[in-house]
Each structure stands twice: as structure tokens, then as C-alpha cells.
């Protein structure tokens, strides 16, 4: 598979703060990547470095196997970083024309992309009159102008209302379905879970995990149980059951994490035989969120 971006031992220090610490990963064509990390974990800094706006301290990165200089490679990339940045006194079309001139492409696609993000009606309004959601959509249209090899999105739904978040997500899904490689930085996990095939987890600039989403959330799952009274007895019984790793009490529920495959019938049968009658029993796959929290908490 074609490699789009390679990052090797990248470091960035802001004074005492080690914002990106020895980070390495690869982006392959056709996948949808999510960069996960809490606020201030170095996601945006990493994207800033590969996008030529932040200077690296050490290490290196190369676009398209290093065949192009960074600024020429960026002409084949579409990127949105944090806030949409356009000239407030220009209309949508004028702003997009400028982007075309910088990227060295013709104006042909402007209309098509404005329609894609649902801004065609407002194409001749000044950028300063747009709402945040519209600005963000214009940024996406701008990033798609050159039909990029890879689309980089940094917190694309930040600060939007539910309607706006939904719209942006739909657009991202459509783009992903068309086979465009996407790199999405976010701390909203369900967002990543819904669209990404691969994840890179970073905390305090250090890479904690990189691989496919499926692998990351692969586990035997967990049980959620409830009983009227007799909670301590239930915990004890569960702890003695072979195949149950940990048992903990969360609010009024008991969570039992599995260390091998057990189905709900087995556990129900076992508990019933030992005189515990459950009022609630659910088997769950852990969400990306739980896995993420486990990862980021464990390695302190």
C-alpha cells in the first residue's frame, strides 16, 4: 500500500514542555486515521509540524515517500486546523479562488465543492457574515478543492452546535466513503469510533498506541450486573468464577471484566445455582472511550 506520510522520531519542545515526544507513525493510502488524545496532548502541534507552520525540534517527516518538498506536497493535501481562517472581506468564492491560485489549480471545482458543503446559496456573501458552522463548512470545501490525496482535520466539530456537528460528520463520512485518506484529530471518541479505521493515541506527546480500531477495542467484553441486596456476596461469587478478570462496583452496578469468552447464560446459571438472583444482566463490548481511558490512565 502506498505511504502518504511517514513520521520518524519527531520531537517538539516549547521551552520546558516536551509537546511531541519521539513520535513515529505512518499514514497509508485509503485508511481513515484518528489521532486521539486529551486536550494539550500534542495533537495539534504534530499536525502543525507536518503542515509547515510549526518548526520541529528534531526528527523528521516526509510526504509521499519524500519525493516532494513540504510546501509542494501540501498542494496535494487538504487541511483544516482549529479555527477556519479566511479573509473576512472576501466572499466565499473569492476566498476559494485565492486558494486555487496558491495551489496552482483552475477554478473549475469551486461550484461543485460549495454545493457539496451546502453553501452554494451563500457563495457571494462575505466570509465575515458567516456563522461558525458555515465557516467550518467553507473550510472543508476549501480543503477539498484540489481533490486531495489526504484530508487533515483538526477538531472539525469544535464549538459547533448539535446541528452543525451532525452536518460536518455527514460530510466527513461521505468523503471517507469516496476513498479519500483522512487524518482526523479529535478528543471526541465517538466521532473517531464512527468514522476511523485506525487510531493513534497520544498523551503528553508520547504515542501510547497505534493500530486499527478493531484491534484496540478487541477484548472478551464485560458484564454489567445488578442485584437487590446481597451485593458483597455477588462480588465474591464473581471473583471466584474462572474467566472473570476484575470486578468493580460502579454506582449501583457491578462491572465484571472478562479474561476469556463467557456467555451470559453461563454466568446467569452459575449465580442462580449459588442462590443469587439478578435483577439486571448485560454483556457489553467495551467502547473506544473505555479503552482510551484505560490506555491513558494506565501508563502514568
Amino acid at each position, binding site marked *: 500500500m502506498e505511504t502518504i506520510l511517514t513520521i520518524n522520531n519527531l520531537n517538539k519542545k516549547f521551552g520546558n514542555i516536551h509537546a511531541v515526544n519521539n513520535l513515529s507513525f505512518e499514514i497509508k493510502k485509503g485508511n481513515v486515521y484518528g489521532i486521539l488524545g486529551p486536550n494539550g496532548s500534542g495533537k495539534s502541534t504534530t499536525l502543525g509540524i507536518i503542515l509547515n*507552520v510549526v*518548526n520541529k525540534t528534531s526528527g523528521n517527516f516526509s510526504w509521499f515517500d519524500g519525493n516532494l518538498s513540504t510546501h509542494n506536497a501540501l498542494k496535494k493535501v487538504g487541511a483544516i486546523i482549529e479555527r477556519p*481562517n479566511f479573509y473576512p472581506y472576501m466572499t466565499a468564492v473569492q476566498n476559494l479562488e485565492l486558494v486555487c491560485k496558491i495551489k496552482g489549480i483552475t477554478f473549475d471545482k469551486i461550484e461543485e465543492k460549495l454545493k457539496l458543503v451546502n453553501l452554494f446559496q451563500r457563495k457571494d456573501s462575505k466570509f465575515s457574515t458567516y456563522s461558525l458552522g458555515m465557516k467550518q463548512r467553507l473550510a472543508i470545501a476549501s480543503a477539498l478543492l484540489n481533490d486531495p490525496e489526504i484530508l487533515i482535520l483538526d477538531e472539525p466539530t469544535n464549538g459547533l452546535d448539535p446541528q452543525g456537528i451532525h452536518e460536518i460528520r455527514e460530510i466527513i463520512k461521505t468523503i471517507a466513503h469516496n476513498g479519500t485518506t483522512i487524518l482526523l484529530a479529535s478528543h471526541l471518541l465517538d466521532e473517531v469510533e464512527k468514522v476511523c479505521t485506525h487510531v493513534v493515541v497520544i498523551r503528553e506527546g508520547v504515542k501510547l498506541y497505534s493500530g486499527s480500531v478493531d484491534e484496540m477495542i478487541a477484548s472478551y467484553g464485560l458484564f454489567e450486573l445488578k442485584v437487590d441486596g446481597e451485593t458483597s456476596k455477588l462480588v465474591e461469587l464473581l471473583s471466584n468464577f474462572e474467566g472473570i478478570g476484575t470486578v468493580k462496583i460502579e454506582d449501583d452496578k457491578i462491572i465484571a471484566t472478562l479474561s476469556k469468552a463467557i456467555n451470559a447464560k453461563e454466568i446467569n446459571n452459575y449465580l442462580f445455582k449459588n442462590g443469587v438472583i439478578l435483577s439486571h444482566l448485560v454483556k457489553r463490548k467495551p467502547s473506544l472511550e473505555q479503552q482510551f481511558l484505560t490506555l491513558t490512565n494506565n501508563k502514568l
Partner: protein
Amino acid sequence: MFRLLNIEIHKLKYSKASKVLIIIYFALLTSIALIAAIKFDIGPIKFHLAEQGIFNFPYIWHLNTFLASWFKFFLLLVIVSMMANEYSNKTLKQNLIDGLSKKEFILSKFYTVILFSLISTVFVFTVSLILGYIYSDFNEFSIVTTDLEYLIAFFVKLLGFFSFGLFLGILVKRSAFAVGAMFVWFIFESFVKGMLYWKIKPNAEDIMRVFPLEAMSNLIKEPFTRFSAVKSVAKQVGEDLSKDFSVQPLDILIVLLWTSAFIYFSFLLLKKRDL
């Protein structure tokens, strides 16, 4: 080069503030012609300034380039804001992400500065030529083409001045503060000048001419005392006005060196900064 210029013009042509300032600037340049309209007609005293010989070739080149260079402040505002606004709108960041290199970014601004200086020079040349042919007592081709180096000096002066503005725009990132910084620098130069003339009189001029603003103002010396009418008055008073009014190649070199330094340091600043 034309791609970069094209990008910059695209940014300028939709900006209302820049457009207004540019129009005012060129209107002011044309207004030099209005001096011709100055006429006093008080009974027996008839005075028409244009008829006094101030528009004579080749003196007109000196006078008009000197007067025109006062208006450069209008264009300075455009140049400083076209730089500083890229920071405040964060569009600089977006330009780089879209695939403009930092070098190309600086070059696109510098090419625009060259273009502005060039158009201004051509403009002043045309206005002076027309005024000269209307009012000058001498219209021989050889006289018309003497002292054209004042136009070169004018071009270099604008180039240096605008490059300084560009550099300050990048340095302080805010238009108003950048113009303020230019003013502060001017005060500083004046202060140094005052101290030098006070303390070490003989070499003061040689030291001062390497300062950027002083070097720029040395390019075209004030033309008024050169004017023959003034000279004759001064002679009666007994003052010696034998002064060299010509454009010094060394001054041109100094300003060109400053220009390259400003552009190079702008590039270094941009390269070093994280956006």
C-alpha cells in the same frame, strides 16, 4: 513571480480599506499638478507660482520627486496592514497550509512593494513630464532628460521605506503598532543625530548616513534652497548655500543594502516563528 504577484493582488483588490488608501495616494500624487494653480492676483502684484520657473526642466525632477515622497505614508499603511492582517486573520497560517512556502510568502509581499514603487515612479514621471512641457522654459530633449537619476532615487527611496514597513509589520504583527514602531525609530534616529551633532560634530554626517531613515531622506535632498529665486535672496542676506544636491550613489547603495536586510530578516523571522 507573476503567480506570487497575482496572489497578492487578489488579496488587495477585494479589500476596501486598501483600495481607498491606494486611490487617495495616487490622487495626492496627481495633486502636485495643483501647485500650478497657485496664483495671487492682488491688484498690481501678479504672482503665478508655475510661471516662476519651479517647473523648469531639469529642476522639476528634483522638486516633484521630493514632494511626491511625502505621500508615501499612505501607501505605508496599505503595506503594513497587508502584512499585519495576515497575522491577525491567521490567514498566513492558512496560506502556508495551502501550499505557499514561507519564502514565497515573503517574496509575494516584496514583489508587491516593487510594483507599488515602480507604478509610483512611472506616475510621478508622467505627471512631471506633462507639467514640464506645459510650464518649462526649456523643452530641449537633452535638458528634459538631465537629472533623471532623481527618479531612480525616488524608486529606491520608496522601495527601502516600504520594505522597512513590511519588516515592522512582520515583527510586531499589528498594523497600528507597526506604524508606531516606525515613528519610534524615527525619534530614535533624530535623537542619535542630535547627540552626534552635539558631541562629535565633524563625523556626525558620515555616521548618520548609514541609518535607514536618514539614508532614505539623503537620497533626495530638499530642493527649495536650490531654486534660483531663493538663492538670490540668500545671497543678499549673505548666506552660503553652495550645497551638493545631486543623488549620491553611496546613498543608493546604503538604502539597497537596508532593503535586502529588511526582506531577509522578515524571512528569518517568519522561518523561526511557530504560528
